[in-house]
């Protein structure tokens, strides 16, 4: 087990290093002169040149790369070109909101999606199977911003249970997380239903039935755990996609998260800020991948044996 963890961690660090390097190379290759952005469009060329030198951009590429890595190791992601804000601080202010939203959304997707999948698989080809699938698909077909606005109107304005926007109240996360969960749950229902139906046809399920267990118990205690693998894979990928993809929902609900930050940074050619967002999302994805592997190992005792002999 220890070997399994160490190997996964080493792999994770290597991937992060790769991401960081790629971000540096792309940033360097972009036709953007940071000195011009800082100096403003009307500044004379000599000022731009002196800022350029101040930023150390006149040094050779390997030297700049090493000092970039060195700074990263100390958590220094540089200053925003647009606002002169410290990038690390800006990210740390916003990351908690996005993390909370994404985590709760994925948990919500799992709860809705897997419950519907269990209903569908348990009552295969009956009314309940159809009802569960239609419910899941309706979520998929609704545009998330539309659902968000409807929810805001009903539960924020007509019956003001939740705040209309912003993050001042602790219940800010409920509506945006539900919106994301409901619109994303259909995938989990589909994959979960197929996976559960496959597991339910296996011999060990017949053995479980031969013990006299109730169908619900067979589904819950025996089949579900074995059917979770593809669902866990999905959840890991989904977490990654949502980290970078919650922009619309953040905008609608006025949440100061990473999506909004990235969006502004792109509009302002604010390279350090954008790089910071990419690196943070990359690190979160790597951590999620490792966590997914641990969940696999927990779900299926054969995984560790296969990986470490």
């Amino acid at each position, binding site marked *: 087990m220890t070997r399994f963890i160490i190997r996964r961690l080493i792999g994770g660090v290597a991937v992060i290093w790769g991401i960081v390097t790629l971000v540096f190379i792309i940033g360097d290759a972009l036709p953007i002169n940071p000195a011009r952005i800082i100096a403003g469009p009307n500044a004379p060329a000599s000022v731009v040149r002196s800022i350029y030198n101040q930023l150390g951009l006149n040094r050779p590429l390997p030297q700049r790369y090493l000092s970039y890595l060195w700074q990263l190791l100390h958590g220094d992601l540089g200053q925003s070109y647009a606002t002169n804000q410290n990038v690390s601080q800006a990210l740390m202010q916003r990351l908690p909101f996005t993390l909370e939203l994404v985590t709760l959304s994925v948990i919500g997707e799992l709860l809705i999606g897997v419950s519907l999948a269990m209903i569908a698989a348990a009552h*295969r080809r009956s009314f309940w199977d159809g009802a569960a699938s239609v419910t899941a698909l309706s979520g998929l077909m609704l545009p998330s911003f539309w659902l968000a606005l409807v929810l805001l109107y009903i539960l924020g304005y007509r019956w003001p249970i939740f705040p209309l926007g912003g993050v001042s109240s602790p219940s800010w996360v409920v509506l945006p997380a539900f919106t994301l969960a409901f619109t994303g749950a259909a995938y989990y229902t589909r994959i979960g239903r197929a996976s559960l139906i496959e597991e339910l046809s296996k*011999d060990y399920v017949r053995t*479980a039935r031969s013990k006299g267990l109730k169908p619900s118990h067979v589904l819950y205690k025996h089949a579900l755990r074995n059917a979770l693998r593809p669902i866990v894979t999905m959840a890991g990928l989904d977490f990654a996609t949502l980290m970078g993809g919650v922009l619309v929902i953040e905008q609608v609900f006025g949440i100061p998260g990473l999506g909004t930050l990235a969006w502004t940074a792109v509009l302002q050619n604010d390279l350090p800020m954008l790089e910071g967002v990419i690196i943070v999302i990359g690190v979160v994805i790597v951590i999620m991948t490792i966590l997914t592997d641990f969940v696999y190992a927990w779900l299926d005792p054969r995984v560790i044996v296969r990986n470490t002999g």
Partner: protein
Amino acid sequence: MVGNVAAGDTALLQVNDLHTDITTRQGVVHAVSGVSLCIDAGETVGLVGESGCGKTMTAMSLVRLLPGGAGITSGSIKLDGRDLVPLADSQIRSLRGSQISVVFQDPMTSLNPTMAIGHQISESFRLHRSASRRQARSRALEVLGLVGMPRPSERLGEYPHQLSGGMRQRAMIALALVCEPKLLIADEPTTALDATIQAQILELLDNLRQRLGMGMLLVTHDMGVIAGHADRVLVMYAGKIVESAPTEGIFADPRHRYTEALLKSVPSLDQDRSRRLSTIPGTPPDLSHPLRGCSFAPRCSFATDQCNESEPILDGETEAHRYACYHPRSTTAASVTEPASHKAGRSQRPTTLARESPPILSLASVSRRYPVGAGVFRRGSESIKAVSDVSLTVAQGETFGLVGESGCGKSTLGRLIVALERPDEGSVLINGTAFDALSKPQQRQRRRDVQLVFQDSYSAMNPKMRIGSIMRDPLRVQRVGSAAEQRARVTALLDSVGLPQRVTDRFPHELSGGQRQRVGFARALTLSPKLIVADEPVSALDVSVQAQIINLMQSLQSEFNLTYVIVSHDLSVVRYVADRIGVMYLGRLVEIGPSDAVYKHPAHPYTAGLLESIPIPRLQQGNAKQGSAIRGELPSAIHPPSGCPFRTRCPRAQDRCANEAPILRGFSSGHSAACHFPLIPVGASADDIGRTI
């Protein structure tokens, strides 16, 4: 129709006129139609028949563990006098696992891979006896001990993949017996296991049945298993019981023509090898369109108009032995004269062939290793020697049989011969040249000469291709002939394997198992190979079909002058088809010789043990139950025992066996074995050896 009336009132289980239908898109399949049976406490009743005859459906109907769309339509199932058919599902559930338990076929797939053994066993105890977690745990420990699991307390926390096949089946049996049921249904309990383990498990089931006084329904396709372990036998065909008799009666005096044919198509160890196996022509009927009259009539050579007109009822001269046949096998006639065709075939086969023709295949000290636990930190630190120092030769036109338990390396050796794998040491020579010594075009040519036939032809065929394309594929890949010539070749070969032309347009799933295996052989033959390696060619087939394929293999051999290497765990089949036999154990060749010599006078204790573990479909003297010949299980292949690998399970092992690995020594002409303390004297017939040298 009341079966076994005499025992009717006192029986533990009394089934009367049971009908189970399966509703499918194609229509209603009458899987079980009118089955009556009874089982007393402490009695084993065997239910035997080919796949699709309804034996498993009958057994599963008893506990209502039926697939979707299936249900009991009429009849009664009385357990201790209480009818189970009208009970609600929840009432049936309370009986499952507590009163009636089931042991399933494949313990690997029948146990939950993600749940610890202890939990799986204790689950039903907690459910039915409302026991606490602790009580259930100690009960699980107790039953694991009862089923002979070594170190039971360690096993509680282990998962199925950590156990060997035999241990898993013991765990499965423990799971079934944890609540001490009155009736145990064993559905092909040993079909997925090796012969030596099979014997151990059957013996265990016998002992447990006696100790716990359970009734047991033993469902199997294997007449040998039935012969050694059942008190009474029911033979099923097309959803009906066609013969019911005490075990002695079935084997000494089978009356129904189907029972007779079934018994004849199993090759036995003392089978006359010059005779073709008798087969049952045709295939079992489609149960969605029941026939008028006897269901076996279309395949029966004794059928008359009466058989096609009305259905015979289950009856007989005595209450115990009943059969549903208008033209039963006569008791007085000593033996039915066999159709002449059965004697044709291979009688001209020269037995001395092996020594006269030049070897087509020769293996010299071949070894193949696989690394285990390969990874960043421990690459190549340990390895399994799948094949270890094997030398043998196979002559042109010969059939060589390779036998051994699963994991002994016999399939790896087969793959080495067809050059799907390369040896780590030693050489595999075909017609005197090794694969790697050839140039690329020559290697391509070599691929034509050596072909492979698989156990499961269905998974060895692309399901999206039609049979015609599947068979043409080798010709296309090797660019042999024009499209028309290729098609003509396919046509000719289909003829040779006895399949109609129209199968070229079919997909693999539309064919029966036997037809697919015929296609498997036809495909292997397209490139006119000299040597065919057949890996378990008949293991997946029913006995009647198995006999057809064996006969086909033999006629193809003489027609195309083929050399066969047949890899199989089924010793009776290998004994019948092979001229010479090699016995493998843990990657080593432990005995090799002409098949008659090896079977009649085995020199190695392992060979002798294997032969003893074969369930023989004959009556045992005094109805003695068969015992298991070889104790214990296959040791770890990563850390094989020192010296002789078999010493850990060998009854004759002494200190010398641990210190010194035995080498192959000659006993008689071409017969040698690697054992320090062989069962027959070395050089049994010295003059015979002298002649060969």
